């Protein structure tokens, strides 16, 4: 398991608890990680650093150790094997020091926000995870899991996590021609990395583009000028790479004169909407589920083809809990004739994470920890024919485990966009 190796190399070369690194031209450091409080031994510059990366601003100091976070954490649903990440315990440790015995566990969090949505003391645990990871990278106290490191190297030079050339970013179009942005376009369609390069996820982007074309939406794509949105990069704590990617995309959008961006992934949605404005972005962002529901409501998109299917819908964490988009995906499904929507044991606000958030999609943590398998089992238990989602990460995770399991459960994994395309009326 790569993560153990990195934890070991982080700890063995220095005297215990003594770390120094450079921040904004100044030397900052932590003398000891077994003091009562990290700020006691830290210099003013170090305290400023901890505050700048959010670690002293995120409210973990007010945690009263009730265990609500660990009770709802998807890591803790595995009663057989016990929990590998006890989030409550980790917060208790970080109240004293961001280095203290946290080790590799900081990389496990999928930032699904189940804990944040129920914390009675309103601690922003998800944001704290990014702060802890950033601290580890910048102080050198720990490094990212090996597989994520490869993704980040590729992102830095090629703008995608797969070490693929920029030119192949149009692979998903499968020969279809889409225009580049001009002053006439209504919106820019931003497929995102997985749909752009991954054969399976590419079908989501293709489906969305086909729907837009059938409805007559005047849209464009950036093609090779598009870079990864950087959402998972920031969750992994690599702030400088995130900034680089954000600035690249903002410059590309600005050059293309884009004012409205349609995204496939809830992760792109999150960072474009909530984080890019920090760097001067001023475009509107819309997730394709809300966009399609608007088209249906306006009567521009008519779903008439009958589907006698029983389906269940998995709420992606970054669509649901992070942005409260629960209704629109379901409203789309309810407007497809013949479709029966059944809910899983955990749904909507309580949706169980697929395990792909927080940068985990680029690591082997996903499948090792059984998170997608547990969710898939809930989907199978509904008796549905199809498990639908609206996020390329979720789709990729479920699909990989669905194939590799081969247990003949017979559930099909698909994206809402694919189903909508199939249900589109085909008169004319």
């Amino acid at each position: 398991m790569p993560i153990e190796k990195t934890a070991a190399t982080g700890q063995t070369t220095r005297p215990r608890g003594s770390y120094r690194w450079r921040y904004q031209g100044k030397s900052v450091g932590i003398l000891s990680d077994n003091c009562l409080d990290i700020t006691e031994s830290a210099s003013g510059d170090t305290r400023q650093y901890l505050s700048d990366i959010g670690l002293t601003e995120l409210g973990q100091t007010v945690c009263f150790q009730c265990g609500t976070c660990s009770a709802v954490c998807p890591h803790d649903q595995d009663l057989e094997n016990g929990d590998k990440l006890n989030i409550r315990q980790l917060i208790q440790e970080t109240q004293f020091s961001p280095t203290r015995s946290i080790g590799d566990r900081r990389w496990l969090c999928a930032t699904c926000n189940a804990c944040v949505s129920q914390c009675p003391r309103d601690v922003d645990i998800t944001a704290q995870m990014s702060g802890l990871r950033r601290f580890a990278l910048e102080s050198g106290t720990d490094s990212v899991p090996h597989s994520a490191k490869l993704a980040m190297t590729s992102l830095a030079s090629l703008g995608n996590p797969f070490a693929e050339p920029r030119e192949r970013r149009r692979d998903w179009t499968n020969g279809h021609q889409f225009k580049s942005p001009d002053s006439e376009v209504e919106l820019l369609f931003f497929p995102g990395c997985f749909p752009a390069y991954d054969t399976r996820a590419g079908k989501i982007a293709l489906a969305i583009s086909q729907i837009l074309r059938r409805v007559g939406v005047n849209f464009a794509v950036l093609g090779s000028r598009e870079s990864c949105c950087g959402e998972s990069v920031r969750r992994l704590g690599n702030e400088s790479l995130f900034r680089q990617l954000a600035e690249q995309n903002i410059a590309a959008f600005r050059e293309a004169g884009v004012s409205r961006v349609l995204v496939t992934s809830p992760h792109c949605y999150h960072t474009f909407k909530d984080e890019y404005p920090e760097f001067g972005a001023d475009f509107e962002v819309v997730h394709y589920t809300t966009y399609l529901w608007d088209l249906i409501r306006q009567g521009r998109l008519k779903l008439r083809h009958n589907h006698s299917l029983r389906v269940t819908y998995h709420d992606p964490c970054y669509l649901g809990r992070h942005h409260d988009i629960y209704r629109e995906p379901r409203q789309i499904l309810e407007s497809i004739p013949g479709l029966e929507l059944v809910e899983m044991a955990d749904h909507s606000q309580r949706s169980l994470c697929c395990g792909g958030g927080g940068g985990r999609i680029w690591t082997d943590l996903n499948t090792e920890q059984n998170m997608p398998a547990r969710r898939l089992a809930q989907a199978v238990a509904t008796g549905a024919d199809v498990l639908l989602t609206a996020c390329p990460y979720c789709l990729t995770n479920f699909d990989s485990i669905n194939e590799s399991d081969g247990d003949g459960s017979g559930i099909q994994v698909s994206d809402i966009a694919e189903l909508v395309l199939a249900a589109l009326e085909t008169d004319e």
Partner: protein
Amino acid sequence: MNRQVCIIGGGVAGMQTAAALDAIGIPSLLVEKSAALGGRLREHHRLFPYLDSGTELLGRLEDSLRRAALADVRLDSEVTRITGEAPDFSVELNGAEVVTPVAAIVAAAGFEPFDASQQEEYGYGVYRNVINGLDLERLLHPDGATGGELRRPSDGQPVRDLAIVFCVGSRNEKLGRRFCSRVCCAFSTKQAIEIKERYPETSVTCFYIDIRTYGRGFEEMYHRAQQSGVRYIRGRVAECGQLADGRITIKAENTLLNKPVRGSFDLVSLSQGMAPCRDAAQIAEMLRLERDESGFFTSRAAESAPNDSARPGVFLAGAVTGLKPIPDCITDGNAVSARIAAYLRSLD
């Protein structure tokens, strides 16, 4: 000294205030909006920490008021308007009758239990076998629907295992309820003992964040609960669910073992917190009094003058200044009477 005092609220604090004023020769008008005296005490069969009878205490308070010739009790009555300044207030009742002059006013309006259905993750009002602490008290009351037998609301079957969830609607930023309701740990522990002592075969599990035993006899009661076999698990319940057979599932972490807890129970009781009574805002406005961020009335000086308001001639008793157990409400009634006596004397 024989000027009249108006007491708003006929619960324990208000009743004791009227009785204590009578004992020192001060007439009072005790205004209670419901049809009976006793307030929230009426809902409690046995009292913590000694499991004394709530009915008996209520009887004693009622007796003392019956003997109080100077206490004018008005049931089904509400104060609707207050004009003038101390010691010449005019108090309007039910929008009609005006009582004047009133030399002093006591706010003893009490508290309201938290509506547990607001904490949706526990399913109160959705799952029939999720009840609240007062529902459980009624189940244990001989005059209740089950004749005092502990039975599942869904099917009337005996309860084999019960979970009590502490801190419901208390200590919760999400609900905007930051305060500790203070008495629920003791109230629920009392119920756990009652059940365990009456039904030794029934398992009782309490899920808590901290056990707060600040009052006299509370820690000993907690000890007695543990001795009688009540299990305490340190971990806040994150959510409840319902099984096909009506049993209630619980999701929590045992934070002392660092292990997830999953269990199912015949019955789950939510130890709901409390808040200032529903008409606290209206009463505060009539009396021109300040309240704190949680809605409790602010004393003139929290430490040295807890029963005085910032306004001359207006006094505070009972849960309006913060949630408190019954003996503290009795103490408040006595204390506020002494403060009023001193005030009235200063006028002479």
